[in-house]
Structure formats: structure tokens, C-alpha cells
């Protein structure tokens, strides 16, 4: 038996296929999200990596993420809160607080000892504190988003960057640049700004250890360091953090398949 979880986010599409023992048979991530070719490409890729599996071989399919209703073949749609919680708890059963920063939202989730969601908070409408915010900043700084962590590790100081509004923060970054402040320190400030938003949400959940990060932004070690510094606690990064939502969706699909 195989099941599939699809996470169609705002900025990327992720797919996970599980077998009968809940092993990940294959997964894929494509860096474009809902309303694009992303979901179709992610599906194509995930099957390519298998020994000839096809979508028809999937006993159940669950979709999550902002584009969850756009995929007709899904048997069920489940919110990303429940999916991230399920995926992360499966990978890290000691997780009690989840911080997930995706392309367009940031969320903090509190789990109980059985992995059930007992509280969750999401960011407000502004892009500040999300992956989009980092995209905007990388563009202003003329560097690749994937290089940001590296720059951050060389910072000698963390400069102040607003966390209230992306536009404010952008103009602050521009003025730091024109004052010849090293990019490294500005980037550390940008990461601290993202961290402060996410930590604000995490504190509201009650903040119980272990704290685990998921979502695409968790791949940025600079943000993880900033969060850990702000919370004054260690933060575990889920393995393959970008696919935790899709994994959770696949696990829900697995439960559905076993029900019938």
C-alpha cells in the first residue's frame, strides 16, 4: 500500500509518498507554489524517483497548504496546522512546541504528549517574519537566499531591523547599506527580526521543550540560531524541514487508508 501527501504552499510545492510501514519512499520539493506548475511538477518528480509508481497506485491522497483545494485527486484536505503537527511529531516524538516558518506564514503550535494540537497561533497579514520577507531582503542585498545563513555566521554584530512591517524593514536595510554596515551584520539583524516574530507566537503557546522547527525557513541556520538565541533554548530542526507538512498529510492519508 502507498499513500501520498501533498503540501501546496504559497511559495513551494512538496510531495511525500509513504509505504505500508510509514517509510518515506520518495519525496520532492519544487520552489513554486499554488496557482503555478509547481504541484504538477512536484508530483511528476516524486513518481520519477520511485520504481514506476503511479498516482493510481496511491490508496489515499491528502492535500494541505494554501492550495489544498486546487488538487482534485485528493481524497481529503487537512489544514497545515494539523499536518505540520503530525509530520513533526512523527519525526521528533519529544516535540511539544513547533515553530514553522513558510513562504507566507509563520506559525507556532503546541502539542500534548500524544502529539495532539492543543494550541496554535499564526502570523498576521504582513509578510514580516515569513519566508517572503527573507526573499525581499535577499533581493535588496543582492545575494542568494541560500547564502544568507553563511553571511550570518560571519556577523560581528546584530543590527536592528524592524519586525513590524516588511516595507519599513526594507528601507531600514537600505539605509544600513548606505551607511556601509557590513552585509553580514545586516543579515544577522534580518534573521533576528524574523525570529522575534516567530518567537512572539511561540511564547504565546506556553513554550514547552522540545522546540522543533519545520518549514522551508528552518533550512536557514541563521534564522534557527536567532530563534534559539531569542528563546534562550536549544531548537531542533526537523529532518528535511520543508517536507514536514507533506509528510503529515501523507500520515493522515495513511490513517485514512487503514480505516477502510
Amino acid at each position: 500500500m502507498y499513500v501520498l501527501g501533498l503540501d501546496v504552499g504559497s511559495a513551494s510545492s512538496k510531495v511525500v509518498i509513504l509505504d505500508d510501514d510509514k517509510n518515506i519512499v520518495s519525496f520532492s520539493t519544487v520552489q513554486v507554489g499554488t496557482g503555478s506548475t509547481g504541484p504538477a511538477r512536484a508530483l511528476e518528480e516524486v513518481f520519477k524517483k520511485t520504481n514506476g509508481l503511479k498516482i493510481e497506485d496511491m490508496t489515499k491522497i491528502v492535500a494541505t497548504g494554501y492550495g489544498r483545494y486546487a488538487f482534485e485527486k485528493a481524497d481529503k484536505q487537512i489544514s497545515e496546522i494539523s499536518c505540520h503537527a503530525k509530520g513533526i511529531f512523527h519525526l521528533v516524538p519529544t516535540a511539544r512546541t513547533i515553530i514553522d516558518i513558510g513562504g507566507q506564514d509563520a506559525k507556532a503550535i503546541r502539542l500534548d504528549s500524544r502529539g495532539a494540537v492543543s494550541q496554535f497561533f499564526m502570523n498576521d497579514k504582513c509578510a514580516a517574519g515569513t519566508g517572503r520577507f527573507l526573499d525581499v531582503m535577499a533581493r535588496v542585498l543582492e545575494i542568494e537566499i541560500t547564502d544568507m545563513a553563511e553571511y550570518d555566521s560571519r556577523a560581528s554584530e546584530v543590527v536592528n531591523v524592524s519586525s513590524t512591517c516588511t516595507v519599513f524593514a526594507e528601507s531600514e536595510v537600505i539605509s544600513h547599506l548606505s551607511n556601509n554596515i557590513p552585509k553580514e551584520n545586516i543579515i544577522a539583524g534580518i534573521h533576528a527580526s524574523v525570529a522575534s516574530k516567530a518567537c512572539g507566537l511561540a511564547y504565546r503557546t506556553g513554550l514547552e521543550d522540545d522546540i522543533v522547527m519545520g518549514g522551508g525557513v528552518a533550512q536557514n541556520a541563521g534564522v534557527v540560531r536567532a530563534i534559539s538565541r531569542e528563546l534562550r533554548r536549544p531548537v531542533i530542526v526537523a529532518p528535511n524541514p520543508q517536507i514536514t507538512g507533506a509528510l503529515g498529510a501523507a500520515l493522515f492519508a495513511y490513517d485514512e487508508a487503514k480505516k477502510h
Partner: protein
Amino acid sequence: MTETEGMNAKQKLAYYLDKSYADANAAHSKGELVCWSSSIAPAEFCVTMGIHMLYPENHAAAVGAKHGAIEILELAERKGYTMDNCSYSRINLAYMDLLVEEKKTGKTPEALQKLDELKVPRMPLPDIIITCNNICNTLLKWYENIAVSLNIPYIIIDTPYVHDWPIPQHTIDYMKEQFKYAIKQIEDLTGKPFDYEKFVKVQEQTQRSVAAWDRAMGMAAIVPSPLSGFDMFNFMALIVCARSQFAAEDTFNTLADELQVKADAGQDAFKGGERTRIAWEGIAVWPYLSHTYKALKNLGMNMVGSTYPGAWSIHYEVGDLGQMAAGYCKMYSNTCLDNKVNVISDVLINTNCTGILYHLNRSCKLMSFLNVETAEILKEKTGIPYASFDGDQTDPRNFSEAQYDTRVEALSEVMEQMKAEKAKA
């Protein structure tokens, strides 16, 4: 035989709402007095003296619900009102300017024509205004702007914030004095002595209307509930604008009778689809009323709990100005956090809700800022899960459907899981 004989509650609601605007417009053309009032200000004084009452908050909500808000909001912003001001106030102030322009030029401005096309009822310009800051202090400056712009009398009923129970005597005395001053302002404007006999009749009517409202809204407690909170939002317009009139009593008694028949037949507001029951804290998102309702309905979530209906349950002994003062100042947004928590937890218990949805309303600072704290205390106290979403009661730019849906779905999943666990146990 009354003019509404044979109508159902929805028809009565539409009839009386239309009539309240039509009567005020007719009165205005005849040179009779019209008053604009905040939603929970005492109407009793003006109604006694035959002044026609209109409610800018109701009107702004109608502008929002009929999808006419954006243009009017932009007009307000062009005049210099920032987006941080309550959207009801922005809509009303821009609307007032449009009416003034029409009066001055004899030509209907385009934006006003658009609202006419959308069938947003017309409000005539007021001759007097009354506000009571028992719901917020934004009203004071908003109404002051109207009074200054139109050079008309302004009745203010200033309600001290209630921290102590019972309500201190000095608060009641202070309000009674203001009531007396309001009566004088009305006497000055109308040139007639205040009719104390009629005042008693108006108070009696107000109490009968409130009793009928309580009776209808009380039906939400029945499991499954014959009343959806979104109907509650719709009917609310009438308890706002006709609290001191027979219209409210008539409509809400009919509504209560209809709901009783449904309840006796075991019918719920979703035709058998009520899976869970939730409370909604905050004002509706008028431009997205249907979306916010459907997202809940699709998940079988019946919104039955709200502190809102209680806001107009203003009870007092007829003839007792002190009790009337207490009634208007113990309005729940004018009371301390502890009371707020108690009021919501009573709603949760009475209506059997297992989840709460908080509207973090960009317009309404008082409600929204308190909600964050209230939510946490209530979660601690009751264990009932909650979610919050960002929105605005009439500014459609401050609401995102996708964000709302995700939060509602996640809340539903948590509620369903808790329900399943309870059933297992």
C-alpha cells in the same frame, strides 16, 4: 390588525429596517428632527420627543455588507482619515461629506449614486447627534467631527469604565446628571418641555423589546440550535435601531416563535448538519459575511455563542433613571477584563460551545486588544480551544479569505479531535 400581520420574522426585519430609513427621510423633508446615534446610546430621550433615530454603525455595516465600502473608505482616506481609524467612522464621515456636497450643489455625487444603486439605504443629515462611550472612545471624536462640521447639538453620555461591582454610586449619579442635561439639550432644540409621561411609555416599550430579543437569542442555547449566529448578526440591526419601538418587540417575538417550532421539531440551523458549536467573539466581517458563514457551515460548525446579543439586553426598572444609568454603563465592553471573561464563559456554558473564534478587528481596538488576553485567560479557565483571525468589520482590505479558512479549519480539526477523544473516554 397591525401592518406586519402575516409576515415572518425575516420579512418583518426587512420591513421595519426599510421603514426606519423611509420614516426618517420623510421626517427630514417635512422639517422634523433627525438624530444620528451610536449603537448603544440611550434612545429613550429622543424617541420620547418624537425625534427620528438613525444609526451610523448600522448604516456603515450595510455599506460593507452590500459591497460598497472600498470607494467610501478611499474618500475618507483622501480627506486625511488614516486606515487606523475605525472603518465605521471612516465610512460615516465620508458619507456625511457626500450628503453635504449633495445639499450644497444640488447634484448627487457619483459615490453616493453608486451606493443608491447598491440599494444602501439613504440617511438624511442629522439635526442632533447622541453618543455614549460605553462601547469605545473613538465615538467621541467621530461624533465631535460631525457636530462641528454640521454645527448641530451634540449629546454625550460619558460612561465611566466599570472596574468595581456593584457599580459605584458616584458613577450612577454622574450619569444621571448627564441624562438630565441631555433632556435639557433636547428641550432647547425642540422648544418643548420634556414629556415625562411618554418617557415612561417609551421605557416600557424598550423593556418589552429587550425581553423579546432575549427570548429569541436565548434559542441559541438549544442543542442542536435552531438559530445560527449569523442570523443573529442580521437581526441585530433592529435591536440597534428600534430598541425603543414596537417594531423590535414584534419582530423578535415572531422570530422566537418560529425558532421554538423548529426546536420542537428537533431542527437545527444547518438542517441536521450541526457537528460542533462555536462562539464568535467580535463584530461580523460584513463584506465577507457569506464567506465567513459558509466556511464554518461547510465544517458543520454552528456559531451559536456570542456576547453580542447581550450588549443590547439593557434591563432596568421603568421610571428609575439610576437603574437606566447602570444598564447603559455595564455594557460589557465598558467593564474590566474579569467581567469580560465571566461574560464569555457564561455564554460558552449556556450555549454549549466547544470552541471560540476571535475576530482581531483592525477597526475596533478596544475589543481586539482585550481579546488576546481574554482568550488566554479563558483557555486556562475552560480548556476550550480557540483561534483568532485578522479582519475588519467593514474594510474589506483588512481580511484574507485564505487566512480565515486555514485558521477555522485548524480549529475545527482540534475540536473534532477533542470530541472524538471525549466520546472514546
